[in-house]
């Protein structure tokens, strides 16, 4: 079975301290006022006394979905789902920052990096993993609410948690079902805040135009084939072509 790198998060352990967000910002040089990850609070003030509903702090980031709508919105394949690791990857070299993928994420996990001018989002810190370290947010988390690993590997911490809690894991639902790979153990609060994957009009236009363009090219190609056919069948009947 191929890998599926994912986060299994015990949202009930999150104290909303923002260490993960700060660590991510430093580790990935995320520009001011832009964020690759977040903690979403559900914090209605209950009646005092024995609390029937506790506050929920939901850590999140790119969910490296199985049905990544962002990938559908990318014309060049600069963002793609890695079949080996299950990550949704951005190829910085190929991305020109057109922004198509940003509204295509129903979780608003993507943004256009103001310094790099390219699409940006959580990438599970590949440089750190290459150095044998966990992603920055996971490494730094005070209560170890965030657990990262291959959920298909039963030996990994993430896989173990995933298996142990299978059946009662929560995923954040969106109006577009992207099949996210971020699993919450413990109540993450509002599990339905995901929005709709919006593909920009220009991308829609390009997709709509594609068959037409192909049609025109095909028509032209057919014409050429016809001419070629005639040239070979009818022979060279052009008297002007006698000399050169």
């Amino acid at each position, binding site marked *: 079975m191929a890998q599926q790198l994912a986060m299994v998060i015990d949202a009930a352990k999150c104290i909303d301290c923002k260490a993960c967000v700060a660590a991510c910002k430093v580790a990935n040089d995320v520009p001011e006022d832009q964020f690759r990850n977040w903690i979403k609070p559900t914090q209605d003030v209950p009646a005092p006394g024995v609390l029937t509903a506790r506050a929920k702090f939901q850590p999140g980031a790119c969910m490296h979905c199985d049905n990544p709508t962002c990938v559908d919105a990318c014309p060049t394949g600069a963002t793609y789902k890695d079949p080996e690791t299950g990550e949704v990857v951005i190829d910085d070299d*190929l991305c020109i920052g057109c922004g198509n993928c940003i509204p295509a994420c129903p979780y608003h996990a993507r943004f256009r990096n103001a310094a790099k001018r390219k699409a940006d989002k959580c990438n599970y810190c590949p440089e750190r993993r290459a150095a044998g370290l966990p992603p920055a947010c996971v490494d730094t988390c005070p209560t170890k609410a965030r657990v990262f690993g291959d959920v298909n590997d039963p030996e990994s911490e993430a896989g173990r948690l995933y298996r142990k809690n299978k059946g009662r894991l929560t995923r954040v639902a969106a109006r577009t079902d992207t099949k996210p790979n971020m699993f919450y153990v413990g109540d993450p609060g509002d599990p339905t805040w995901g929005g709709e994957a919006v593909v920009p009009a220009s991308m829609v236009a*390009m997709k709509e135009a594609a068959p037409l363009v192909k049609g*025109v090219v095909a028509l032209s190609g057919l*014409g050429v084939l016809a001419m070629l056919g*005639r040239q070979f069948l009818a022979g060279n009947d052009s008297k002007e072509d006698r000399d050169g």
Partner: protein
Amino acid sequence: MAKMHKRHDKSDILIHWFNAVCWVLLLLTGVGLIQNPAIDPFGSGYPEAMRSLVGGGGNLLAIHEGIGLVWIAGFILYLIVNFRGARFFLAEVFSVSPARDMGWMLKKMVLMTLGPKPLKAMGMDPELPAQGFYNMGQKAFAQVSVAGGVVIAVTGVIMYLSDRTFGAEATGWVSWSIALHFIAVGLVFAGLLVHIYMAAISPEERPGFKSMFTGAVPDDYAKHHHRLWWEKAETEGEQPTE
């Protein structure tokens, strides 16, 4: 040697072949940059192969951008060096005489694909109306190429600048540029197929093809294919070469 007519000067020939080479390379690389099942023109194998060939999508993009910039620079240089030639070319390709040129176009399409019989059967004269420096087919393709070329160049530059100078507020422009770039290339490419066939494969236009290297066409060819230009050249006493 038969009497020849000068048709293109050196800079015309150079820009044509420069354009041709750029186009081929830009097409090869550009098509490799589109990798989305919904728009991918040739299926997903080609982009992957191209990217592997040059060591990654980023390299392919860089190559494409590099050639694109050279292509634009080449045209700008041409405009500076041979502005008169360019003006002549534009004036020629955009001056269309509707009745004659359309008639030529229709008849030519039928002739090339089906031969003269259908025309005769319909009681039409298979003889083509006389054409000027360019025939209508060449003009049509040139028009598409010029308009498409401008769109392609402008959108290309916008995309090129996207991750270099543009902020997030410009992504709409960039995104639309991608779409227009793609559509424009597609349309020009459709014409290009015919152009290549007509110019390089069809035996009938072989002297024209040759003139793209030598700059001159035989008197006979000129008379037959570009009668109006031939007449003008004759009356104005243009010195035929050799």
